[in-house]
C-alpha cells in the first residue's frame, strides 16, 4: 500500500444509522486502513443519489431500495449501484399524532402493544371514519395521512406491509406522502399528517416534543429488518477494489465499536454534533440503548434489537433483502415484473465483495447469500420459492 492515504468522499444524511460511517472517521478506523475519509452531509436522498451518480461521492449512506431502484432505472436515471455493506438493522418506528393515538386506544390499542393489536385498532378507526364520512355525505374529507421519507425506502414498504396485513389498503384507505425527516414533526404538529414511519431520532423527537406517540417499532413488524446500506457505483467498485475493501473493513470495525454498550455514550455525543446529526445526545443514546419512551412522560420501553450495528450479521448485505424490496416495488405498482430484472436485482447486493474485503479480519461471515425473511403476521418471504418473475 502506498504511504499517502487514499481519499474517499462519502455522503450521508443526518440519521442514526450514519453512526458507523461517522465512527469510522472519528475513531480512526478509516485511518488505520490507510484511508482519508471526507464526510459530506446532504439534505435529500435525491441529492445523495445524484452526487453518487456524477462522481461527487465515491460512496454514500443510502436507502437499500434506492440502490435497487437506480440499478433498474425506476423513477430516474438507470445507473447500476451496488450495496456491498449494510449499515445496521432496524432503527425505524411508526408514530401517530396524540389525537389519532387517543382514537386508536379507544379501539383497543395499548402502549407498547404488538403490531397486530395496534394495526387492528387503526383499521377500526379508519372503518368508522369512512362509515361516518359516507353517511354524512362528507366524501371529500381527506383520509388519514401518513408521512414517509422516500418512495423507494424500507419506511414506505414496512408501513405498507403493516397496513395491508391488518386490512388497510395503503393506496385507498389512507394517503401516503413523502416528507423529509426534519419536517415530519412540524407537519404532525400542524395537523398536516396523522402519522409517519421514519428512522431515529425523529420518532423520539416527536415524543419528546409532546406531538406524537410511538405505535410500534418496525422491528416488531419485521424482526431484524434491513435499513440503510453503503452504496457506490458498480463501475467505481470495480475500478477501486482495494480502496473499497479497506473502507468496508473500517466500517466493519466501526460497526463492532458502535454495537458495544460501553461506547454508546461517546457515540451519542459524537453523533449529536451539528456537523453530523445535530440532535440531543440523550435521544440518540436512548435509541442506541434500544430503550425509547413511547409516549411523553412514559418510562423508556425496552425494544430488543431495535437498532443493531453489527451483531446478528447486521452488516451483511443479504441478497434476500434486495429481492424483497423488488417484490414490494412490484406489489405496489412502482415497476412491472420482468424476468430480466431478477438478475440485476440480485447483483445489486454484493456479499461476494463483503466476504473478500473482510477475509483478512478472520471474522465469522454468513455462508449463504439469502435467508427466509419472517414477518409479524406469520408469513415468510422465502426467496427461493417466492421470487419468481
Amino acid at each position, binding site marked *: 500500500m502506498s504511504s499517502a492515504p487514499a481519499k474517499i468522499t462519502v455522503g450521508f444524511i443526518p440519521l442514526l444509522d450514519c453512526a458507523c460511517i461517522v465512527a469510522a472517521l472519528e475513531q480512526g478506523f478509516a485511518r488505520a486502513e490507510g484511508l482519508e475519509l471526507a464526510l459530506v452531509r446532504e439534505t*435529500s436522498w435525491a441529492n445523495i443519489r445524484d452526487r453518487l451518480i456524477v462522481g461527487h461521492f465515491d460512496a454514500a449512506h443510502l436507502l437499500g431500495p434506492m440502490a435497487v431502484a437506480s440499478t433498474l432505472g425506476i*423513477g430516474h436515471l438507470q445507473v447500476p449501484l451496488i450495496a456491498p455493506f449494510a449499515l445496521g438493522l432496524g432503527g425505524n418506528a411508526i408514530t401517530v399524532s396524540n389525537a389519532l393515538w387517543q382514537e386508536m386506544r379507544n379501539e383497543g390499542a395499548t402502549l407498547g402493544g404488538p403490531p397486530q393489536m395496534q394495526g387492528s385498532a387503526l383499521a377500526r378507526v379508519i372503518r368508522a371514519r369512512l362509515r361516518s364520512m359516507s353517511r354524512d355525505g362528507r366524501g371529500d374529507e381527506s383520509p388519514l395521512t401518513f408521512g414517509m421519507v422516500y418512495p423507494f425506502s424500507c419506511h414506505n414498504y414496512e408501513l405498507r406491509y403493516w397496513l395491508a396485513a391488518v386490512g388497510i389498503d395503503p393506496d385507498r384507505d389512507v394517503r401516503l406522502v413523502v416528507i423529509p425527516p426534519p419536517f415530519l414533526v412540524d407537519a404532525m404538529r400542524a395537523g398536516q399528517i396523522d402519522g409517519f414511519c421514519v428512522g431515529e431520532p425523529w420518532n423520539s423527537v416527536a415524543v419528546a416534543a409532546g406531538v406524537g406517540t410511538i405505535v410500534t417499532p418496525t422491528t416488531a413488524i419485521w424482526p431484524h429488518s434491513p435499513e440503510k446500506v453503503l452504496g457506490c457505483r458498480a463501475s467505481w467498485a470495480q475500478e477501486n477494489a482495494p480502496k473499497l475493501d479497506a473502507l468496508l473493513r473500517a466500517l466493519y470495525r466501526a460497526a463492532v465499536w458502535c454495537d458495544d454498550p460501553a461506547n454508546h455514550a461517546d457515540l451519542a455525543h459524537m453523533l449529536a454534533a451539528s456537523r453530523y446529526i445535530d440532535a440531543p445526545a440523550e435521544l440518540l443514546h436512548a435509541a442506541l440503548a434500544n430503550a425509547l419512551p413511547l409516549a411523553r412522560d412514559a418510562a423508556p420501553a425496552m425494544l430488543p434489537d431495535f437498532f443493531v450495528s453489527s451483531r446478528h450479521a447486521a452488516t451483511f448485505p443479504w441478497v434476500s433483502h434486495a429481492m424483497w424490496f423488488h417484490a414490494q416495488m412490484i406489489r405496489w405498482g412502482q415497476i412491472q415484473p420482468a424476468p430480466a430484472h431478477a438478475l440485476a436485482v440480485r447483483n445489486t447486493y454484493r456479499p461476494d465483495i463483503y466476504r473478500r474485503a473482510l477475509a483478512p479480519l478472520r471474522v465469522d461471515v454468513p455462508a449463504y447469500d439469502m435467508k427466509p425473511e419472517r414477518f409479524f403476521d406469520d408469513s415468510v418471504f422465502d426467496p427461493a420459492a417466492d421470487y419468481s418473475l
Partner: protein
Amino acid sequence: MGEPSLRILLVDQNAARAAILEEGLREAGLHDITIVRETQGLLRRIVDLDPDVIFIDLENPNRDVLEQMFQVSRSVRRPIAMFVDHADTETIRAAIESGVGAYVVDGLRKDLVKTILDTAVGHFNTFNRMRDELERVHRQLEDRKLIERAKGILMKERALSESDAYAVLRKAAMNENRRIADIARSIVATMGLPK
C-alpha cells in the same frame, strides 16, 4: 421568439436566488414563471399550473417530495418528469455543482431544455459567486477587527508599539504556519475580555 411560451415553476426558499434566476429566464425570453416558496399544497399547484419545467434548489430537502409526486403522477398517467436527459451526465454535473435541480416534463424538446438549463445554471453560478464574494468580504472585515483587537491587547500587555505588536503576530503566524487572523483569534480568546 416564435415558440409558444413555456411554463416554468420555481421552487426556492431563498427569495434572492429565485429572483436572480427569474431575471435570467426573462432575459432569455421566458416570461411564464411562477415562484413558490412552500411545498405545502405543491402537488395541487403543479396540477393547476401544468408547468413544462420545474426548478428546485438542491439545498431544499423537499426535493424528495417532488420525486414522489412524479412517482404518483406516473401512476395516474400524467406526464413523466425527470432530471434533465438520461445520458447527459455532464449537464447533470453542472446543474448539481451550481445547486439547481431541474425536473423537465416529458415531451419537451431537448434543445430547449438544454438552453433553459444553461441559463439557469449560469444564473445560479452568478448568485453563488456573489454569495461567496460577500462571505469573503465579510470574513476579511471580521479578520481585520480581530487583528486590531489582538494588537491592542499586545500593545497594552507588553507595552509594544503598534508596528511591533503586528510584527509579533506575523512572526507567530509564520512559526505556527497559521493565518495571522487565527493567531489574533487565540489571543483575543485567551487574553481579551469581551467588550
